[in-house]
């Protein structure tokens, strides 16, 4: 049996293990270990890898963002920020039809800006919003569905734990990925609010009463109360983006900031601190074990040449890049109904990313690249003749590329075909990452096994699962429309990302 065949055979074996309820990290670890033993014909190499790989994975500087973000999310819960966010959102949206539900989504989006996990966002906001939704007469299933969907904003709006893992796997810039997630995250919140507006019009009996209109002075005061959230968000995401600190340092600042707010609000006591450590401990250990298993499994796959072969095969097949992208996204939608987002990304990105790298979506043209480089050159105040600069700008404005002589005369660097390819690969990575993040999150709210649905439904004993299923379909539909829009118009995702 060739190595390639062994690599291929490992997929069904791995899936069988996972479907037998073997923890996903352990399943990948075992598949990788056994695979390595078969391929190398010996236990020496896999064991030797273990000598440094476990420690290496657990001490990875980029990965240390993950426990820090988890701690930050829990501290944010303790700081009572969910309350002030909900109050602010309610004062602005509460008087509309379905307004309290819209406010829940808005508050989830705000909480997502300081929390990188979707279940934590959904669970925290439910504690605050469910009683209010009930008080205003919203149907149980609609309320739980709204919060389950709103929770997915936690992972889409930066900071996001899953996006950190994606960035590490594809060796991309975390700050740029966070920026790229911003507009799709806002679109998601708006999309959910539209879904709510549609739902309460089709099922008026399930929508609740509207609140009385609140004067603007009071609205502004409520908005002012959420300043700690805004401060932490801009400090963390802005600081990372502006290069004040590395993403890991940003996560530390965020954890410290939310911890301080929680302490000042009186939410941080001995007991809650211990509890926040336990929650962080369980989630971090789980995530790191999956990362370890994935590293082992992917090390084995790389040895079998499977990812390279798959990429070469797809590249040579002549299939349209768009078709391949759509197939991959549909695959994620289906798998997302069974598996959690992080495991799925760790399992599949090492295979799919080499494939995506081979595809050309023409996201950036040479003219665009040259224009941005020229702008940077002009802004840098370098010694360039003004007439030459004006001439180059005119050519580019006309939609034509600069000739090689011209770029040389201008001293313009990084505008050759190779540089263009690199930029395109980076943009593809960022765009693809956001798309994948969205489709795996749809899985969290897709019946029958969407994890968010279960967690939120469990918090409301009186509501049956079926009622939640029926209402959540409106949110799933809104998600799917957004995916189609983002696939069709890549520039929406890439608008904020600098070249």
């Amino acid at each position, binding site marked *: 049996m060739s190595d390639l065949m062994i690599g291929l055979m490992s997929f069904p074996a791995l899936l069988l293990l996972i479907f037998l*309820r*073997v923890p996903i990290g352990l399943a990948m670890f*075992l598949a990788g270990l056994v695979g390595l033993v078969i391929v190398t014909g010996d236990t020496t190499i896999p064991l030797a890898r*273990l*000598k440094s790989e476990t*420690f290496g994975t657990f001490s990875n500087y980029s990965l240390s963002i993950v426990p820090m973000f988890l*701690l930050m999310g829990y501290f944010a819960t303790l700081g009572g920020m969910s309350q002030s966010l909900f109050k602010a959102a309610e004062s602005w949206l509460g008087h509309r039809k379905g307004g309290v539900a819209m406010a829940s989504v808005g508050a989830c989006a705000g909480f997502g800006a300081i929390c990188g996990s979707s279940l934590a966002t959904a669970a925290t906001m439910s504690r605050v919003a469910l009683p209010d939704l009930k008080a205003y007469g919203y149907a149980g299933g609609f309320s739980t569905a709204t919060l389950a969907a709103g929770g997915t904003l936690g992972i889409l709006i930066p900071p996001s734990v899953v996006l950190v893992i994606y960035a590490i796997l594809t060796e991309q810039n975390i700050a740029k990925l966070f920026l790229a997630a911003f507009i799709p995250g806002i679109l998601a919140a708006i999309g959910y609010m539209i879904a709510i507006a549609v739902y309460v019009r089709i099922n008026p009996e399930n929508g609740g009463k509207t609140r009385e209109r609140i004067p603007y002075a009071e609205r502004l005061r409520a908005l002012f109360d959420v300043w700690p959230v805004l401060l932490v968000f801009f400090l963390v995401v802005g600081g990372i983006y502006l290069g004040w600190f590395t993403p890991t340092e940003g996560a530390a600042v965020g*954890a410290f900031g939310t911890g301080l707010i929680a302490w000042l609000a009186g939410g941080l006591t001995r007991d809650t601190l211990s509890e926040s450590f336990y929650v962080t401990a*369980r989630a971090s250990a789980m995530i790191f074990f999956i990362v370890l298993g994935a590293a082992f499994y992917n090390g084995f796959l790389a040895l079998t040449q499977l990812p390279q072969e798959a990429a070469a095969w797809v590249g040579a097949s002549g299939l349209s890049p768009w078709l391949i992208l759509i197939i991959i996204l549909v695959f994620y939608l289906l798998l997302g109904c069974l598996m959690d987002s*992080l495991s799925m990304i760790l399992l599949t990105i090492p295979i799919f990313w080499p494939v995506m790298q081979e595809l050309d979506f023409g996201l950036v043209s040479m003219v665009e690249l040259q224009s941005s480089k020229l702008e940077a050159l002009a802004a840098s105040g370098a010694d360039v003749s003004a007439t030459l600069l004006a001439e180059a700008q005119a050519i580019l404005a006309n939609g034509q590329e600069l000739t090689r002589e011209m770029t040389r005369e201008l001293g313009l660097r990084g505008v050759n075909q190779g540089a263009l390819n690199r930029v395109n690969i980076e943009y593809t990575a960022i765009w693809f990452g956001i798309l994948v993040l969205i489709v795996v999150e749809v899985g969290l709210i897709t019946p029958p096994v969407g994890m968010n649905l279960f967690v939120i439904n469990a918090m409301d004993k009186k509501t049956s699962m079926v009622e939640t299923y029926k209402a959540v379909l409106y949110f799933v539909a809104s998600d799917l429309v957004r995916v189609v829009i983002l696939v069709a118009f890549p520039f929406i995702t890439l608008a904020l990302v600098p070249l």
Partner: protein
Amino acid sequence: MHIFFDRLARTFARLGGFVLGFLVVLTCVSILGRSVNTILNGDLFQSIMPGFSAALLNTGIGPIKGDFEIVEAGMAFAIFAFLPLCQLNGAHASVDIFTSKLDLRSSRLLRAIIEVVFAAVLVIIAWQLFEGLQTKRNAGETSFYLEFPVWWAYAVSLFAAVVAAIVSIYVAVMRVLESVTGNRVLPPELEADH
């Protein structure tokens, strides 16, 4: 017996948590030091009160040297220290829609087998960590900035890795007992909190 392992796992989770908290504070202090250093070295302070800023700079205000090496070593310990609680609470992510239809007997048998394999893997991990420690020690490898021997970091992690292996052996033995006797021994698993 369960109370003992529960306390052990929770103690280690708190220990890891405190280390994590320490790393958070350390990183923030380092950023603060770096920022103050940059400001004091900046044009503004250098022109208005050069003596003052030089005096302050001489006290050594600046980023903590090699802070990320402490973060890396500390984080490895924290994650290993987090493992026992995750193991005891069965908090690892898994897919159970295909096995939820199994009868109790088969379900318990399956769980017992999985936990035994998991314990074996964690024992191998601890053992190889020890091997790795010896390799680093014999090679006399030191960290780049702080120049502390790398095996120190391994040793601290090994301590927690051994506890993780012991707790996982306990869980495995209990699950096998459950499967053989048909009685529930361990409390029900927690929902994963990711």
